[in-house]
């Protein structure tokens, strides 16, 4: 894996107007280099959101490490759900290339994609 800063990536997150959805937007390359930022974006958000919406509209590429990060987010929801309702993870606005990667890996079976 080549660690390069030439292809810049960014993670931003915001709580939606209703207050129960956290939108995480990943711009550029969704890969290992942003794993800390990605984790920071969803951990310890108060109040805990009901849905984590990963907005991929500005994501150019997504690699297997990113799929791993999504699995971690999914796991985080299972753990943080506790006795109450478990938060959901949804992926949205993936471009054709990113959608292809998600379907090749069959991740569309474990994440709802819209």
């Amino acid at each position, binding site marked *: *894996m*080549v660690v390069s800063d*030439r*292809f810049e990536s960014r993670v931003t997150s915001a709580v939606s107007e209703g207050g129960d959805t956290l939108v995480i937007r990943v711009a550029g390359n969704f890969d*290992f280099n942003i794993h800390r930022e990605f984790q920071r974006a969803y951990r310890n958000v108060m109040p805990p959101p009901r849905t984590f919406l990963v907005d991929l509209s500005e994501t150019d*590429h997504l*690699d*297997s*490490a990113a*799929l*791993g*990060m999504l*699995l*971690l987010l999914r*796991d985080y929801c299972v753990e943080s759900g506790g006795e109450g309702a478990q938060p959901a993870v949804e992926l949205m606005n993936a471009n054709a290339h990113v959608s292809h990667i998600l*379907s*090749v*890996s*069959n*991740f569309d*079976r*474990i994440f709802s994609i819209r």
Partner: protein
Amino acid sequence: MPAFRVLIVESDAGELGELRQLIHNSEYTSSTGCVLPTSIHAVPSVDMAVGAYDEFHPNLVIFGPVAANNTVADEIRQLRQSGGVELVPILFVQDLTGEAPPPAPPTICDDILTKPYSPPLVQLKLASIRRFCEFSRSLMAQRDRLRRHHADFLQEQANAREIFGNLGNESCLDDTPAIRYHLSPRAVLNGDLLAATHTPDGKLVLMLGDFAGHGLAAAVGAVPLTSIFYSMMPRGFSMSRVLREINRKLYDILPRQMFCCLVMLELDPRRNHLRILNAGMPSPCLKRTNGELHMLESRHLPFGVLSSDQVDTSIVNVRVMPGDRLYLWSDGIHEARNSQGEHFGESRLINLLREDGDEGFQAFDQILVAVNAHAAEQHDDLSLVELDLTHASLRKSGCLAVDHGGSRKGGRVGDWSMQLHLSQQELRTTDPLPHLLGVLAQMPGAVRFQEDLAIALGELFRNALEHGVLELDSSIKATDDGFVRYYDLMAERRGQLTEGWVRISLSCREGEAGGELTLEVEDSGVGFPEVREHTGVYAGRGLNLLHTICDEVHYHPGSSRVEATIRWNGAAEQHSASESSGKAMQNPPLPV
């Protein structure tokens, strides 16, 4: 904390004494709050200073006023060189008490002290130099630590590479010209993995995997993956059983964010049947002689993601035609970037595959050249496999099988018999062959029959299950679509099986004159039809295969019982007995 070491270069005793006193009086408290001592070493000349350098390791060099006047730039340069990479500041004392203006200090010194001395200014300068030295010392310490870690890391990688290299020793990748492959030297640490072996009944099984995750941790997963593969496949476990085992193991041991994308294929070169499962890998490409390309898309989640699996319904069946070739690769090819950040992508790859075969154009080589040219400044980071599915070498015996030279003489096989009865529950999931072969492997003389037995048992069991119990009609397989439907239907009916049984009996008799091994397979089905001709159950390759292996094959219309016999002559060559018993130990107990 070591003392601060000052080297004074001065030939005049009076000047030296004055400098000693000044330095001695200056106090310094380090950033950590300790008051640190100063040690002073004095030499009269630059030459001697160079000599003292190695022993004294000064943190600071001060040239007294007399020495400063008599020193030239070259000597200072020489002095600096003896200090190595560590920066040791050099101070000159300039005497401003004389009448004549002193010469400008050479720029090669770092700073000056002026005489008459102002003790507070000298103290300030010394303190700032010491702070600088502390900083530089901590940088050096960090550099050394990083160097050590890096050396350790490289060593670990080298060790890992060696381990992974040895894991591949069992593979048969290099035993047949039917397989061409390229694995980058970095493959191990990218998490890419390629393995191939033969099943006891002569099928080729190959897998190309790609662990997601980072670095060595991802590569570690390759160990259980290959050990399951290489221990179960040669024992005759079915592909789905092995895949389920792989998924279970990886799910149990891998951290949540790690998983393994995998293509596994099983090629039966005698029946021209390819079974392939793609779990998250880029689609392998089947290239037919007429130029058609078929992409075998991923139909399964990568392994290690979920505890459950859908292996059986995700395996794709392909009828192999003469000249068919299969290309497999990892995403290193898709993701190879050029200097603009543009991926190599699948379409470039497909175009190269399309051109394959035109005027000696070899897609395998062209792909490697093209990807490397595209990702000019990146590391070689790709795995590529080409498999000639109908290559003649694949129809020979398995790479691990012992060459018996056609002779069936050898160690004693013994007098024994056994019977295995499988009812519907077992038939849904159980794979009896590995267990039967496992028992046979313990008989010292039986090892030389292993491949033949595996083929004959496999053939008879499959026929009993598919045609007898599941009532599948072989003629469905006549077309390409039918071929796929046949196997889908089989998976479906097998999963829903509510009644039926298969009985397998093996008996062996051996005397002075020779021996015979009889296989009997019977099922709950209606039995063979009255008219067999060439459309009958055993009219196809299966029967031919049985006849090549067995000396006699008997079956009767209206009965489901098949009897096949393998015979051999007297064990005249006693010397080979010990050799055979050694070979019988080939299969250690399953570690999984």
